[in-house]
């Protein structure tokens, strides 16, 4: 089995896992289903190749929907972590590009004087430009906004309040 086969199989397995997580399947159940799908895909790959093996699955979203009835009481931790991580990475990238744009502006204004400032759209950010003898140095602090974006997206997708709601609904009533 080639690396490409393994990557194809793993991509299908992770996509299946993503949809299972969104439907609220418990972690242990998801692990069992992942292992079974991986094993079947490996057998199919040995027989017809990884491309045909994966395409035979069709939509992994549909598969997950047929296997696990949606449980609206469970948080979606994995999906939340993945979406939050992606949002954080994008926000940091945008902040770094804004920092570079700021440094360009500082150099255009006066390349021989040090400058300090921040980007108005990035609260808490700090930019510093300093000319050196043989070049310049730029330091950038992206502030708290990218982290806040990541956390907000994580919370919106993972819906952790479902765990709290489930806990409070299982607490037995006090005896009088």
């Amino acid at each position, binding site marked *: 089995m080639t690396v490409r086969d393994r990557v194809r199989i793993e991509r299908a397995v992770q996509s299946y896992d993503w949809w299972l997580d969104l439907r609220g399947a418990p972690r242990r159940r998801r692990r069992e*289903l992942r*292992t*079974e*799908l*991986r*094993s*079947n895909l*490996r*057998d*199919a790959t*040995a*027989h017809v190749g990884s491309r045909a*093996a994966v395409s*035979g*699955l*069709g*939509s992994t979203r*549909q*598969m997950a929907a*047929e*296997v696990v009835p949606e449980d609206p009481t469970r948080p979606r931790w994995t999906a939340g972590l993945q979406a939050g991580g992606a949002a954080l990475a994008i926000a940091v990238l945008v902040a770094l590009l804004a920092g570079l744009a700021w440094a360009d502006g500082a150099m255009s204004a006066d390349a021989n004087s040090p400058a300090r400032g921040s980007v108005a759209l990035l609260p808490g950010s700090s930019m510093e430009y300093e000319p050196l003898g043989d070049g310049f140095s730029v330091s950038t602090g992206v502030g708290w906004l990218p982290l806040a974006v990541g956390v907000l997206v994580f919370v919106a997708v993972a819906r952790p309040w479902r765990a709290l709601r489930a806990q409070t609904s299982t607490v037995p009533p006090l005896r009088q």
Partner: protein
Amino acid sequence: MLKGVLPLVLLRLVADAEDYGYAVVLRLHELGLAELTEGTVYPALTRLEARGLMSSRLVPSSSGPARKYYAITPAGSEELARGAAAWESLAATVHAALSRTAARSDR
């Protein structure tokens, strides 16, 4: 229509011989049911297990992760007998209806 009788066919296959997901797909294809893909068969096996009509066990495989073999349970055998009888009755009724319709159109 095929999807509707898939659980019955799967129970029959697994009653004949304990098997794992991909091998069941191959057996279905050998029977001429090539349009049943893995994406339909795997969830159907999982649902039958969840309903207690099949049981499963992991068997180590030399080619990779352990394979999950499905076997029919006593409840599955009862369901198979009930389903097979219902199917045969339905098939006979539909066959009779279609034959009558065909005979009328020949006149």
